[in-house]
C-alpha cells in the first residue's frame, strides 16, 4: 500500500482533493446530461445562446497556463527560483485572461436577459461554469502563494490543483457547449 502511495506524484492529500472535485463536477455533468433527455429541443435552443468560440479560446488559454505551471514545477525542482516565479506569474496571468473571457460571456448573457432561472440548462450552466470559475480564482491565489515559497513540493502541489481545474474544464466544455 505504501509502495502504491509512493508511486503517486506529489502530495497524496492533493490527489484526494483532485478526486473529490472530479466526482463533484462529474456528478454535475452527468446530471446535466440526464436532464437534457427530458427536453432535448429546449436544451439545444438554450445552448445556442452560448459563445462556443470564446469557450474554445478559453480551453487553449487554460491548457497553455497548465503547461506553464508544469514547467514551473520542473524549474522549482532544479532550483531555478527566478524561472519558476516567471512561469507561475505567466500561468496566473492566463488564469486572469480565462476569467475575463468568462466574465464577458456572463455579461453577454445578462444583456440578453438570460439568468440561471431562464431555463434548466442555464441553471446547470451557471452552477457548473460558475463553480469552475471559482476554482480558477482559487487556483490563481494558490499559484501566487507557492510562487513566493522556496519549496518545490509546494509548487508541485499548487500546480496539481491548477491541472485539476484544467482537467475539469476539458470535460465540462463538450458537455455544456458542444453536445446537442
Amino acid at each position: 500500500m505504501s509502495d502504491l502511495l509512493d508511486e503517486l506524484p506529489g502530495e497524496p492529500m492533493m490527489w484526494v482533493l483532485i478526486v473529490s472535485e472530479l466526482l463533484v463536477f462529474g456528478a454535475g455533468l452527468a446530471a446535466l446530461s440526464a436532464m437534457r433527455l427530458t427536453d432535448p429541443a429546449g436544451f439545444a435552443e438554450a445552448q445556442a445562446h452560448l459563445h462556443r468560440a470564446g469557450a474554445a479560446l478559453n480551453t487553449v488559454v487554460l491548457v497553455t497556463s497548465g503547461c506553464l505551471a508544469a514547467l514551473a514545477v520542473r524549474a522549482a525542482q532544479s532550483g531555478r527560483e527566478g524561472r519558476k516565479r516567471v512561469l507561475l506569474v505567466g500561468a496566473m496571468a492566463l488564469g486572469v485572461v480565462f476569467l475575463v473571457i468568462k466574465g464577458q460571456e456572463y455579461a453577454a448573457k445578462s444583456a440578453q436577459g438570460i439568468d440561471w432561472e431562464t431555463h434548466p440548462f442555464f441553471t446547470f450552466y451557471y452552477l457548473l461554469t460558475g463553480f469552475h470559475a471559482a476554482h480558477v480564482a482559487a487556483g490563481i491565489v494558490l499559484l501566487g502563494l507557492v510562487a513566493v515559497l522556496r519549496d518545490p513540493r509546494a509548487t508541485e502541489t499548487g500546480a496539481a490543483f491548477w491541472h485539476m481545474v484544467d482537467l475539469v474544464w476539458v470535460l465540462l466544455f463538450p458537455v455544456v457547449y458542444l453536445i446537442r
Partner: protein
Amino acid sequence: MTRDPLLLAWAGLVTLSLAGAGLSLVPAGPVLSLMALSLALLKGRIILHRYLGLAHAPRWRRGFDMVLAGFCAGLAGLALLI
C-alpha cells in the same frame, strides 16, 4: 523540433482544443457527441499523464484512465439517447 514531453503535450492539447472548436460547425447528433467526448478523453489523458505526472505512475495511470474512459462512455451513452 522539440522532444520535451511537456511541450509536446501542450502542442497536442492545443491541437485537440482547436479540433474541438471546429466541432461547433458539425450538425447536432451522435457523431458530434462522440467526437466531442473522444477529444475530451484524449485531452484528459494528456493532462493526467503529462501535466499531473501519472506517466511515471503506471498503476495510478491505468486506474485514472479506466475511470475517465468509463465516465466519458457514460456521458456518450446519455448523449446517444438524445
